[in-house]
């Protein structure tokens, strides 16, 4: 059962080949047996999952099932789940039982999906390797000496190891697409405002966006349909109807224009990754698409812009963790200031502290114009590069990451080098565009991802492009050794 896609499992439940309770039990057994060294999960909610599975089976019997009814999934531990610990992989929230559900949690529950547990991630989604988690790193199932990427590393590794058919992620600078690429799975970051941020613990609010991580584009379409939609409780949610993302999956790519930015094919790309991407592009040409050379001249500003905007918003968002209303409080505080400082000092890990300090500095008196204002202006230039490009092309392609998965510990002491592993994904968040990573080959046994960027609200086209590619390639069907 573990090798079936979400769409196949949905059909199997429909035709009565198995019940959700059987499917859920099989997933829980697989997690029990194989998750140990991978460390994909912070919390497994076996009892709740079995109860939800039985409810889904009853719903299916009464003829009220949708495509996700009874489908097990893993939920990134950044989404609030009522009655279940929501830790954001931080000591700060190690004891936090959420009193409410995130909108995404609610929507998936309403669709009848069965949550198996909460996945490991970088602390407060700050990281590109899953090594900043309070609960220890996640290992990449393709090679356990390497990282799964981050911050949604547990979600991507769990799908790659076939522990779950699908999972949720969030993406602030590449946190869905980069781990999807490094783990050989499909991950989609929707347009900013497409998926509600309510109850999704905030990191950088003008960039954060939730999305699906699955094996196939078709599965991502199914999951996104349930996750997306207008939400009054998110002030930046966009009031626009959700499309039927599956309807256009079969569309021909004939005549489609693919933009190839010179800036994404420079010397920074590993040669093996570059070759895999070139072969994928050749496949798209065979499918009738046309490739066009384009320029995104402000690409070089993306990572520096991000490392002002994201820390600034993070320092503001994380000021709520003060040891007063929820989360960690230090022992025997001397006075209020001592309580704030020690609770936050003990509750946050090193990378979170670094980013809070960078943001505090960038926003402090005398530096605001030089850093935050300047970065917001640069962000305008980056956005306009894409606007101009999309006047001439339908999608933009390149590598998702410059290299395949790197070794655990390799970049942990050098934050700037770590930040550069998100060089191709970050601009998409700054511009608010949708982006997807689809498996496109291997280098030395490690997966390579192809990055597909679309125009605003063009998720259906991205899924169509990835689905057509998956009809003529089999990278997404490969299984890491030991997880067959």
């Amino acid at each position, binding site marked *: 059962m573990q090798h079936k896609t979400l769409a196949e499992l949905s059909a199997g439940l429909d035709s009565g080949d198995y019940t959700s309770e059987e499917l859920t039990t099989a997933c829980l057994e697989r997690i029990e047996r194989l998750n140990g060294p991978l460390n994909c999960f912070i919390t497994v909610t076996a009892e709740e999952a079995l109860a939800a599975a039985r409810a889904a089976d009853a719903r299916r019997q009464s003829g009220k099932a949708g495509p996700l009814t009874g489908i097990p999934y893993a939920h990134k531990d950044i989404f609030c789940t009522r009655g279940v610990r929501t830790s954001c992989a931080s000591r700060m929230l190690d004891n936090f039982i959420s*009193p409410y559900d995130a909108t995404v949690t609610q929507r998936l529950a309403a669709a009848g999906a069965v949550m198996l547990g909460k996945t490991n991630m970088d602390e407060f989604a700050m990281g590109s390797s899953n090594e900043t988690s309070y609960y220890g790193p996640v290992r990449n199932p393709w090679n356990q000496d390497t990282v799964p990427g981050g911050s949604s590393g547990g979600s991507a590794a769990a799908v790659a190891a076939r522990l779950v058919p699908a999972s949720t992620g969030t993406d602030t600078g590449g946190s869905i697409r980069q781990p999807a690429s490094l783990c050989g799975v499909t991950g989609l970051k929707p347009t900013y405002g497409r998926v509600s941020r309510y109850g999704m613990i905030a990191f950088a609010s003008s960039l954060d966006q939730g999305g699906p991580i699955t094996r196939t584009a078709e599965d991502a379409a199914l999951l996104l349909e349930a996750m997306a939609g207008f939400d009054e409780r998110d002030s930046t949610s966009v009031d626009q109807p959700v499309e039927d993302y599956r309807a256009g999956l079969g569309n021909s790519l004939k005549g489609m224009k693919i933009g190839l930015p010179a800036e994404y094919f420079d010397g920074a790309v590993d040669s093996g990754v570059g070759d895999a991407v070139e072969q994928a592009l050749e496949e798209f040409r065979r499918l009738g698409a046309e490739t066009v050379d384009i320029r995104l001249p402000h690409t070089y500003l993306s990572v520096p812009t991000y490392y002002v905007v994201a820390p600034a918003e993070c320092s503001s968002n994380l*000021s709520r963790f003060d040891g007063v209303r*929820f989360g960690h409080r230090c022992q025997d505080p001397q006075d209020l200031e001592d309580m704030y*400082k020690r609770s936050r000092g003990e509750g946050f890990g090193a990378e979170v502290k670094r980013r809070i300090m960078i943001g505090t500095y960038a926003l402090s008196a005398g530096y605001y114009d030089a850093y935050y204002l300047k970065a917001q202006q640069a962000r305008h230039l980056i*956005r306009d590069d894409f606007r101009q490009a999309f006047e001439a092309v339908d999608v933009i392609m390149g590598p998702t990451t410059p290299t395949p998965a790197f070794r655990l510990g390799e970049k942990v002491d050098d934050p700037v080098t770590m930040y550069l592993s998100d060089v191709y994904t970050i601009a998409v968040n700054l511009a608010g565009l949708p982006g997807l990573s689809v498996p496109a080959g291997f280098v030395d046994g490690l997966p390579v991802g192809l990055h597909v960027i679309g125009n605003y609200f063009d998720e259906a086209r991205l899924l169509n492009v990835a689905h057509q590619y998956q009809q003529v390639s089999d990278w997404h069907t490969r299984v890491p050794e030991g997880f067959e």
Partner: protein
Amino acid sequence: MELDDAEVKKIAHLARLGIDPADIPEYVRNLTDILSFVEQLNKVDTAGVPPLAHPLDASQRLRADVVTETDQRAEFQSGAPLVEDGLYLVPKVIE
């Protein structure tokens, strides 16, 4: 951009972050690296470019000023470190 120990301590204080004095040299090094990296922004002339706050140029929605939430104080406070009679307790602020 070169930070020193005193600046790192000041930033940590502004952020109300307790940091171990032994870690200060590492913060000085890391934060200096990050700020130097960010200085690439100065390579571009942004005179007259408006700052971008929202990629879709959207502005905040307004809603009617009516109560929409129910009283869930007891549940919300059940996870608080210290409460009494519905109030959050903190160390004494005024003598």
